[in-house]
């Protein structure tokens, strides 16, 4: 058995030299990052920057071409079941068992995760009430709106209170009320100091409010990483918003200005 460095075994997530490719195209290029205990790590990037590919590699869906991923020291590609037990995952699109109802789906997830009925029911009651899901628990998922599906996925990810939450654009389809609740849930989730959250978004405001550290991903490459304060200093953005920091670090500030100019009177 390979002896792991002590620090890696307690890290919710460590990614080292990750390369993900679709045919010839590299979606992620030698990415290294880590999520520390008690931390919400925000992965920022434009569309197609490689956020979802990174996340899919972390949760064992996309096999990396190179590099390694460890979830509390476990490689999801060597011992998938053990690694996945530690993860709660919300995918970018609400890909669910369309023919099941949310209750049937959550029962399946609870069974796979070996949860106790009483514990699940208590948690589900609380989340269903918070997200106003009570009347939709027996409707087939295919009839539900995107926002409701997203809520079901969030509940499924939280049901076993995993030490690592991996959330791919989790707030995209939610209504403002649910977004507020979710932000509160996530902030409290890491308060114990042992759990971690990897959170991808392209909404700067959300990242600014929630994340302890952010990594800025651009065309598969990590351009910068750190707290918002550190990134401000690095980008010389002064008191600028995260959006300004992001544009500076991805060297898109001039590109955006040129694009706006080229629109002319359109």
């Amino acid at each position, binding site marked *: 058995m390979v002896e792991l460095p002590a620090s890696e075994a307690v890290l919710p997530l460590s990614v080292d030299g990750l390369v993900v490719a679709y045919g010839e195209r590299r979606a992620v290029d030698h990415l290294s990052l880590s999520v520390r205990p008690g931390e919400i790590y925000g992965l920022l990037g434009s569309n197609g920057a490689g956020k979802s590919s990174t996340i899919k590699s972390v949760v064992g869906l996309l096999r990396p071409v190179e590099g390694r991923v460890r979830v509390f020291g476990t490689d999801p590609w060597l011992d*998938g*079941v053990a690694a*996945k037990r530690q993860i709660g995952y919300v995918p970018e699109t609400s890909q*669910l*068992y369309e023919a099941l109802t949310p209750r049937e789906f959550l029962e*399946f997830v*609870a069974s796979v995760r070996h949860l106790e009925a009483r514990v699940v029911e208590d948690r589900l009651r609380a989340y269903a009430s918070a997200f106003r899901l009570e009347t939709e628990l027996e409707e*087939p998922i295919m009839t539900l709106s995107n926002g409701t599906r997203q809520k079901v996925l969030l509940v499924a990810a939280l049901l076993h209170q995993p030490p690592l939450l991996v959330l791919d654009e989790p707030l995209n389809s939610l209504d403002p009320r649910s977004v507020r609740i979710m932000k509160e849930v996530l902030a409290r989730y890491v308060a114990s100091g042992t759990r971690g959250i990897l959170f991808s978004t392209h909404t700067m405001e959300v990242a600014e409010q929630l994340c302890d550290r952010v990594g800025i991903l651009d065309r598969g490459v990590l351009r910068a990483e750190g707290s918002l304060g550190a990134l401000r200093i690095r980008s010389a953005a002064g008191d600028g918003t995260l959006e300004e920091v992001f544009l500076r670090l991805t060297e898109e500030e001039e590109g955006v200005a040129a694009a706006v100019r080229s629109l002319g009177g359109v």
Partner: protein
Amino acid sequence: MSWREAFRLSDVAFAELSLQAIYAFRQGNLPPPEAAARVVRKSRTRVLQSKVIISVVLALLAVAAAALLRLSGRLVANGFVAPNLPLGVFDAGVLTVLLSLDIAFLWWTGLQMLPTFLASGVLPVLEPLPIDDRTLRRVAGLVYLRLFDLPALTVLVSVPLFVGLAVGPWAGLALVPGLFAAVVFALALALLTGRFFVRKVQGARGGGGSTVVRWAYLVLWVVPAFSMFAFVTAAPALFAALGRIAAQDPSWGASLLFAAFPFSFAVVPSVIAQGPAGFGLPTEAAVVVAAMGVYLALAAWAVLWMFESVRSIGAAPAVLPAAGPAARIHIAPRTPAFAVLTKDLRIASRTPGYAFLLLLPILDAIAIGLWTYVSSPGSAAALGLGLGAVTTAALLATFFGPAFFAIEVNAYSYGRSLPLADRSIVLGKVALVALLYVVAAALVLSLTLLRVFEPLVFVAFVAAELPAVVAAACLEFGILFRRARRRGLPVVNFYSGAWYALLVTIPGLLLAVAPVIAFHYASYAGAAVGLAVMAAFALAELAVTAPIGFGRGTR
């Protein structure tokens, strides 16, 4: 916009439909690690392959009918079919059965494809674009027709060709209007009933009462498939009835027969082939022509209706949410394998394609069991029929097993993010196949025991065959799982992934049938010896294939 533009747009929409039918991205499947253009090309090829398989079956039906027509002189002269059956009426009977089979087969195919068509969402994408209503209707109609193009063309070309070769070219050509009506009715029936079932079954709420209603609807869904068996099974009775009608003077029965679809379309080719005298039944030309006119008008109206309706059906949400009361929160976690089994049954209860696979062996077992009871054969024959029915149940469960693997494509990427070992999935699927066999066998058993009370032989036979069914399922799922892990894609659905699902059933069926053959030969030394040999054979198979299902290569 013109028909040309509509055809061009339907080409784009059909490419998307093929992609969704094969790769099911909208259902949560992951893109394979290949260039997009290659994936699109592959999806079109696979859809074409499936159409070819269906077309070959339809062409074989035409060849079989043509062979019967070719041999009709000998068959009728020997009284092989029914006494007093005139040659022309026999021909018309054969063509009637052929047209009915073509309708049933195309209808069933349509029912299998319609949920995929509706779930693909290809038509809603076009709705917001600045395309006029008429063109959108045409595009929708063309996309729907393209699902059936090759099979429908096969019916329209191969039947006149083979019938023409058998009894003359004019007779073959005279069947074309009937074939046109048959194809149109099948397509319209598929659209009408498919939509109804998608709404009633897929959109139904959870809960006990609703589940019973869903399964009741799903039993109706199996009707077209059963009608294929029924037409073949009922063919002798049809010929006997035709013989009785032919023996009578002109009667209401004959008039009704001439007016009935599709017999009215089968009359003209038969009269052409055998001549009015050889037809053997006074032809009521006015009734035949009027009936054909009515059916052709109905078919023309059905074409217009389809072009009107496909758009509204395809563009609307397949199922609508229904407001319901707050659900009682009750969660009963199970073991992972049992959870997979329960999930599959629940998905099947809202997915007609899968429900069909579950219901067919069970309904088949009931039908054979009832037949044994009603026909009241002698004790030995009933025993033979019962054991044959159990064997059929085993073979059907084994044959349909690989298709249950396709359920895994639902939320495939999400499912793979769960800590679910491959072994648990395989165990759940194998349990489903075993359950299917046991339920079907139990139904045969309970019905046959009413006629022949030899419970020990029956129970021992069912039990001895069970390890072989499990062994076959282990082998099939083991192969499919290894392929899915290597290629990153499971078999998608019965229609689109049919070729691979069919291939993998060949060794499975061999495994399932081998112990029965062993029983057949060993039972000359006594039933107990036969059963012991059978059980030993089946257990040996299980010992060999279990590691394929649950050993290295699955995690």
